[in-house]
């Protein structure tokens, strides 16, 4: 029983990060109908920025700020500089451009920083609080959870109640009509990329300190997991991303704990196949459709 509680707690903290990353994928999907395969590579670039800024200034928070800013700048640059060239008629050209971007970013980081893992610090105690002898969440895990929830709420407010949010949704669903109605579609698409890149960077920045460390490939598995979460939750649904993140995080933790770590990638694949075959639009598609 203790073990189950422990595994659930671990899975919850990991799931929150996955949810944030999936949310970044959802944002671009809603904004531009593209799955950004370069999300992980872009996020690792801004994490390197954060690492360097923290190393220079000694402040975690300045590093965090730098990561968010550089994430936004990168999102802007990628949309204007690369993704604009994607053919609107072929969904594949966006995927292929993003793959090219992954290769460019990861190899450039490899040339600039080398392959070694760099340790990252967090400003909170990251040792778990014991509850009844069972190690539960650490203060850092709580920070991650709270951050994830706050970001979700802010974005939900933005999309549902602000004019900008409405414009973004309109531009994504019916770009031609929106343009006729005076929405500057091009600008809202760019904004979607910026927002998504910021959220993705935040997710990577929160995850990397709990893993081996910072390396050009640090987010490789995060992308596959985040994609799975987004698909499980439904690519259109921010709420789905949150619930999907928790589902996948806890499932991973239980598989590792009871079956072995080696089975995790297979379990993820199985979950992905199952959801795609049974509910291709995701578990939360119906609810999302109502809100949209």
């Amino acid at each position, binding site marked *: 029983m203790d073990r189950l509680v422990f595994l659930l707690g671990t899975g919850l903290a990991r799931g929150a990060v996955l949810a944030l990353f999936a949310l970044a994928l959802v944002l671009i999907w809603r904004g531009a109908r*593209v*799955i950004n*395969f370069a999300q992980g590579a872009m996020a690792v670039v801004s994490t390197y920025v954060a690492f360097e800024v923290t190393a220079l200034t000694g402040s975690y928070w300045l590093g965090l700020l730098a990561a968010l800013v550089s994430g936004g700048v990168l999102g802007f640059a990628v949309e204007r500089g*690369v993704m604009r*060239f*994607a*053919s609107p008629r*072929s*969904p*594949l*050209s*966006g*995927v*292929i*451009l993003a*793959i*090219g*971007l*992954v*290769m*460019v*970013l*990861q*190899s*450039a980081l*490899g*040339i600039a920083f*080398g392959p070694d893992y760099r340790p990252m610090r967090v400003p909170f105690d990251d040792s778990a609080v014991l509850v009844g002898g069972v190690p539960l969440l650490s203060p850092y895990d709580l920070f991650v959870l709270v951050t994830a929830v706050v970001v979700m709420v802010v974005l939900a407010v933005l999309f549902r109640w602000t004019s900008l949010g409405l414009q973004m949704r309109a531009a994504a669903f019916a770009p031609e009509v929106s343009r006729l109605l005076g929405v500057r579609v091009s600008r809202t698409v760019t904004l979607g990329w910026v927002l998504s890149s910021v959220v993705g960077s935040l997710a990577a920045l929160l995850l990397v300190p709990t893993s081996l460390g910072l390396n050009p490939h640090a987010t*490789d*598995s995060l992308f*596959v997991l985040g*994609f*799975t979460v987004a*698909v499980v939750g439904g690519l259109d649904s921010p709420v789905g991303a949150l619930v999907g993140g928790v589902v996948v995080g806890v499932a991973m933790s239980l598989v590792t704990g009871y079956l072995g770590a*080696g*089975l*995790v*990638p*297979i379990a*993820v*694949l199985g979950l*992905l*196949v199952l959801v*795609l*075959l049974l509910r*291709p639009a995701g578990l939360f598609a119906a609810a999302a459709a109502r809100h949209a």
Partner: protein
Amino acid sequence: MSRPQRLPGQRPLARTLLLAAGWTLVALLGTFALDPFRNYQLALVAAYLCATAGLTVLVGASGQLSLGHAALMAVGGYGYALTSNALPFGGVARFVVALLAGALVSAVVGLLLGLAAARLSGPYLAGLTLAVVVALPAVASTWSTVLHGDQGVQTAFEGVPDALRRVIALEQWQAMVAVVVAAVVVTGLTVLRGGRFGLRMQAVRDDEVAARLSGIPAGRVKVLAFTASSVAAGLGGAVLCFVAQAVSPGAYTVGFSLLLVVAVVIGGLGSILGAALGSAVVVLLPWLIGRLTAGLPTDAAQRLDGNLAVLVFGLLLITVMALAPQGLHGALTARRRPIDEPVRTEEHTKVLVPTEEQR
């Protein structure tokens, strides 16, 4: 094929076969002019060509993008290796049976994946196939009694047959075998695409709803296209295993899978000649870059080695996709056109789509 009237772009079967035989002969003769390392590189190109030809037909003709073709190659490789090790006899017979087994296993896996793929649109399928190739090492270590984990499966050494040993070196023999298998794969795919099935694939790619309305079983066409592509990749993997005498999950990574996409895109999506050119670029460019960085100081060479090739591939991928979606194949054919007749993307890629009247 029996109809005398052919659709535009279709070739008579006899001409396809003749052309294939001609090219194969040229390639086989070419092996005599190459040193062992060049022949080894030729064998790699031929093995990659099996997979990229399958991938380019899948993407170009049916519009499905797979990021998991490396995993399908691995499936063919494991099928080949395990069968080869289990067979009681040796020689050419063992090679052929093992090769067919590799094709069969990759057909089964491709069919299963294709069943899922048929229900998915582009980006979803790309993500799913990515998850497949990511899970490959875990599959190998979970069933390690058969697949031997990260170590992979080693196969017995297949030397040059006795009759040819005096004239042909080992690497040349391997290159010849690889060329013949690649020729069979490419011919098969060309015939498949040139026939009625090819037209159905394109109809489904261009407008699935319209295709269904005109009585084409779109789902079945997509499953078959994925299966055929998977068999091609599996044969490529089997040939690689024949050349390398081993198959292991570390050889079929996400990076390699993306490299296959690079080959297909820079060659020109949908073009088999492009796939061949792309495979050659993918094999030769890292080697060329390695030559260039060899003279640099240790630290710089260590950082550039490998990374620089990936950087160049990424830039190529973006540039080609953004500015010249026809790739190398497009550049070659464009030169043959009159200048006042510009190549238009839609026209070019959809030249085989039947119009109302033709149908």
